């Protein structure tokens, strides 16, 4: 077994097969999206025009984007102080929260939505009937494991105690410590978690659909059911959004590429 200088033939074979499986659907979707909606022949950009000029497209993508920002904000506000506090004062709780972060995998969106609809059925409409209430509340739970594991890794790589003591000995209030000392040090972990959350929320279909809210994935499904060729063009747009979020995540987290499961 001498060290190999060139790529192994079997590796080439597997990588080519993999590339075929993963690229053919994308190329096919691109070709499909360029077909005319009337005649089915190539090539026209009219399907992209149909989507971009559809007011529902802009409206739903805006809704989903605002939902993402709100979810990211709420998840950070909830988790950054908690993870900080646990690392500083309650290290024994780390394994408890780590275990809790596995619970959303046992209670996936399809189960969570059954319980959430049941529990919050009678609540005021400003919460129950608004995506910015009910859906965000649920999405924070979906984002929690990814944000937690990302933040936990970030906090483990810094010396929380020394930073806190240094800050306090200079007379900083604990909010100042958190915002101006701790936060800049875990920025890349928080950013990585945020981009993952963005990808999850922009693609989440299960809860939005079953709780009857109008988000971007619901719009894609509507197009998917009614207009074959424009569906391909909106699919490529969705793929581009996921791609952008992941590239941003890699840039923020430098090499760590966790996998989300929110969109399934």
């Amino acid at each position, binding site marked *: 077994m001498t060290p190999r200088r060139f790529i192994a033939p079997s590796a080439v074979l597997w990588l080519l097969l993999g590339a075929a499986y*993963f690229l053919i659907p994308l190329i096919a*979707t691109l070709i499909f*999206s360029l077909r005319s909606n009337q005649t089915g022949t190539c090539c026209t950009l009219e399907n992209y025009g149909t989507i971009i000029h559809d007011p529902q497209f802009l409206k739903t993508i805006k809704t989903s984007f605002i939902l993402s920002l709100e979810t990211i904000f709420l998840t950070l506000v909830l988790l950054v102080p908690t993870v900080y506090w646990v690392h500083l004062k309650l290290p024994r709780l780390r394994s408890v929260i780590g275990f809790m972060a596995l619970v959303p995998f046992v209670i*996936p969106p399809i189960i969570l939505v059954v319980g959430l609809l049941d529990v919050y059925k009678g609540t005021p409409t400003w919460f129950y009937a608004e995506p910015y209430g009910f859906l965000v509340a649920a999405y924070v739970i979906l984002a929690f494991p990814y944000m937690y594991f990302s933040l936990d890794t970030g906090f483990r790589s810094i010396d929380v105690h020394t930073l806190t003591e240094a800050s306090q000995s200079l007379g900083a209030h604990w909010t100042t410590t958190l915002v101006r000392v701790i936060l800049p040090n875990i920025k890349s972990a928080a950013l990585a978690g945020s981009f993952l959350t963005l990808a999850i929320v922009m693609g989440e279909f299960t809860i939005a659909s*079953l709780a009857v809210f109008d988000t971007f994935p619901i719009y894609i499904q509507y197009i998917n059911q009614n207009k074959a060729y424009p569906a391909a063009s909106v699919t490529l747009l969705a793929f581009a959004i996921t791609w952008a979020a992941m590239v941003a995540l890699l840039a923020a987290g430098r090499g760590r*590429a966790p996998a989300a499961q929110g*969109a399934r």
Partner: protein
Amino acid sequence: METGRTRRRLPLAYLGVLPFFLYATAFLFWPAAKVMFGAFQDDAGGLTLDHVQKLFDEPYRTAFKNSIEVSLVTAGLGAVFGLLLAYAAIREGTPRFVRAGLTTFSGVAANFAGIPLAAAFIATLGTIGVVTQFMTEQLGFNPYDHGFSVFSKTGIEIVYLYFQIPLMILVIAPAIDGLRREWREAASSLGASSWQFWRHVGIPIMTPSILSAFVLLFGNSFSAYATAYGLTGGSVGLVPITIGFYLSGNVLDDPHLGQALAFGMLVVLALMMLLYIPLQRRASRWSR
């Protein structure tokens, strides 16, 4: 005074994590508990096993059978192909950019699930899909004339692999990295062939990692809803699809049956987690 303060410090410190625990209770544990208790309640609020027992009758029995079958097939194939691809990208001799490219792409593909993924495969392998047309026109072979359909259980399995294989690549790559070069060199200097190295060193060390990844993939497929819904519109009976029907329409008249179905899923996923945690612990033994 001092001792009094130290004695009070413990509960006070716990106050700091209270908001998080309250939130998790309100939006995760309480709804989950409601599902579990609801599965065992009758209309008057009394205890009953009727709903859970119905899970063993048709059509729910078939829904569970389908879901478990799809999950086993896609977790098995996803694990095998993901492992082979990850190894091909990481092993010696493969240019480094291949690995970087594969990891980035896997990050995207593992997250590119749901409705858009279903639409992409309809555009590819649907009745008027690009590949279907290519095969019909250029090769004279229309797969739809030979029993194939992307809107079937097989179709769902083909589509699920699009996020299962990348997930496997992401979770197994660190384990492949953990196979130290020295072990290979030690084996080869003792006269072991490549096959013997894998048979007696490589595979045994990686077994816990591979098994835990398999369990993770199983759960990932088992709880998927959007992709199957986008692809088949619900014509293939999986458990999540059946729950979706219950929530969105009037297919089932018994409100507790949806909870019972969700409870059934929860039991399967909890068993999965019971396997996953110890396997994960075993797997991390060799990690650096």
